[in-house]
């Protein structure tokens, strides 16, 4: 532990969710907003990165050997108005906590829900804003930032600024999806959404080719709020892109209790080798594709947890990939030739035989994300995991990256470990405007790798 006039730092190890990077950091563990703001003012020798709950797969939230502001201690609610749905909380509050507190069903089954929920509820509000995360309803309600009314941002010059669409609006737009590089988010006000029933009806439909995904999606988008598909990434030829399309919507009068604040079961230790390999993926995919039986359809009614947060049932499921960890890849490609490009991506993956069971295909709509570096844009998004097999995996990732960039698409920083500076600049035209909002104290392994900040920190 090191103590100076402005802060205490502790040497602690932090790792990426994919487990590929594990490194010591000089961590500050603030428990008060004023303490967090003060810690930023004294320069960190190797810069500093904000850390939420470490659910990013790559290096956006890491700064090996440098400073790290662990925000998990700032986990207090500040105010909630059940008339308007406006909720203010500290940046370290998790989405699981918000659901537990505000999404309790009222007498009519309705309640206040988070408008945007990514595939895990164990992320912080700060992390949700800094990656401008999206959920299965991105085509309807856009990304997380669309529902942020205001945020309180600490800068390393000692100022604490309120940012909103009317106050410091440019900095607000830079901070949404700003990867923690514009300063430290201390708290935020979110506009929650009243749904007439917290419960959902969910329909799963098997489809046997990529083309059918597009048909099902066109048919669903008007009447189903949450949509995404699981893809069997090992299927080739005429079965390329086969999978299961899932769509959900709220049903008035149907209640659902908030999901647990912590997972019930966990993976305490990493197995010595990855439990996710060619054999287990092939077996899983074959079984999963058939799970809907002869009819190929299933309709269910009730809790949203299994539909929205399937992986949250098992704590530290990431450890199943063994000590070498895994990469995640997510990219979005523009709608015009999305079918062909998605086919090309899935083809490259299937030939390599490297994918995993977790593959998600989803269409993003026209609702614009406001952040200068926000990931969501209209088009088709493909996300999947790859067990880390060294060079053969990074070669495949480079191939996918090339296909995406060539098609005018972009790769998601929250999931990325490999993208080049060129690909980042090509995918994110807001980068130049963004640079003028950088806080000079902030950095990350990601920001240096893709050239958002210069390599030579003082």
């Amino acid at each position, binding site marked *: *532990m090191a103590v100076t006039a402005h802060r205490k730092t502790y040497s*602690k190890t932090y790792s990426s969710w994919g487990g590929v990077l594990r490194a010591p950091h000089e961590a500050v563990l603030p428990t008060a907003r004023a303490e967090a703001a003060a810690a930023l003012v004294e320069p960190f020798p190797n810069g500093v990165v904000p850390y939420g709950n470490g659910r990013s797969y790559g290096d956006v939230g890491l700064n090996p050997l440098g400073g790290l502001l662990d925000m998990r*201690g700032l986990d207090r*609610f500040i105010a909630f108005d059940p008339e308007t749905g406006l909720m203010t909380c500290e940046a370290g509050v998790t989405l699981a906590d918000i659901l537990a*507190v505000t999404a309790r069903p009222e007498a009519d089954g309705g309640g206040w829900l988070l408008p945007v929920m990514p595939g895990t509820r164990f992320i912080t509000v700060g992390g949700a804003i800094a990656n401008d995360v999206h959920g299965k309803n991105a085509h309807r309600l856009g990304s997380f930032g669309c529902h942020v009314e205001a945020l309180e941002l600490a800068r390393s010059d000692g100022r604490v600024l309120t940012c909103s669409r009317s106050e410091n609006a440019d900095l607000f737009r830079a901070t949404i999806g700003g990867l923690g590089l514009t300063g430290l988010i201390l708290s935020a006000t979110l506009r929650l959404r009243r749904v007439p029933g917290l419960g959902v009806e969910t329909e799963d439909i098997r489809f046997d080719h990529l083309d059918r995904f597009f048909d099902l999606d066109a048919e669903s988008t008007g009447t189903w709020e949450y949509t995404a598909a699981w893809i069997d990434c090992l299927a080739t030829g005429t079965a390329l892109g086969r999978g299961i399309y899932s769509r959900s919507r709220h049903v008035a009068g149907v209640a659902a209790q908030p999901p647990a604040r912590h997972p019930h079961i966990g993976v305490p230790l990493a197995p010595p080798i990855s439990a996710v390999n060619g054999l287990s993926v092939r077996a899983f995919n074959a079984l999963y594709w058939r799970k809907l039986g002869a009819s190929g359809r299933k309709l269910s009614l009730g809790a949203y947890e299994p539909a929205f947060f399937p992986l949250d049932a098992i704590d530290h499921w990431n450890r199943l990939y063994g000590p070498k960890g895994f990469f995640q890849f997510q990219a979005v490609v523009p709608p015009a030739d999305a079918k062909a490009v998605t086919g090309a991506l899935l083809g490259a993956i299937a030939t390599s035989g490297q994918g995993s069971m977790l593959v998600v295909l989803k269409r993003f709509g026209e609702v614009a994300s406001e952040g200068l570096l926000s990931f969501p844009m209209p088009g088709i998004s493909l996300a999947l995991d790859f067990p880390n097999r060294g060079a053969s995996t990074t070669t495949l990732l480079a191939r996918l990256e090339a296909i995406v960039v060539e098609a005018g698409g972009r790769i998601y920083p929250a999931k990325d470990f490999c993208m080049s500076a060129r690909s980042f600049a090509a995918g994110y035209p807001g980068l130049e405007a963004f640079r003028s909002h950088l806080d000079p104290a902030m950095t990350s392994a990601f920001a240096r790798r893709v050239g958002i900040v210069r390599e030579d920190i003082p």
Partner: protein
Amino acid sequence: MSARQSRIAIFGATSDIAVAYARRSAAQGARLVLFARDAVALETVAADLKVRGATAVEIRHADFADLSTLPQVSRDAFAAFGGLDVALVAYGSLPDQTALNADPAALKAALDLNFVSPVLLANLLAAPFETARAGAIAVITSVAGDRGRQSNYAYGAAKGGCQTFLEGLRHRLFPAGVTVLDIRPGFVATKMTAHLPQGGPLWATPDQVAGDIVAALEKGRAVLYTPWFWWPIMTIVKSVPRALFHRTKL
């Protein structure tokens, strides 16, 4: 006892374990009166508990190192909601034994805060509970109180002293039907232990400990090892022969 609308006083309310317990109680609609020395932190915790569902939250400033204020603290706690169902004594400090060895004044301060103050307070709280013939006094001691160890015996002695005091108090209050709960956590990831690695199978979160406290109060338990595996661990630690124990670095 159901936590619904129950009246709870917490001494050292900005402790991470205390906050976790308060949050669980708030979610059940409890009424809470909170005592702590850091006014800003106290207000932050109070606002949080209100959003989480507390029916009422009162805050009071208190420095528990100042023993002369304890009678007033006890009266304020009972006055807030006209009686109490649960009183949780949570404050404490984890001093560096090596530093204390060279500094008798610091040793005395550590013993005052971790032993004298909490037992004085528990004894002050006892009388009104005894009169009411209901309720529970819960004090966070520690597994460190179970056996003196070279690395930690000032803290351990203070916690062990609390344990014995609570044992006697429990005996006294038994006829009145008042629960006296001695909470003995193992390693808990809180700001008190931030300088340690805080990872691995022996470490618990404040929320896990809080869950155990809620359950123990509901059952009217006397001694709580939390998480449960500290009971067998401490049974072994206590039974290691002295000759062998002296060769360890514990």
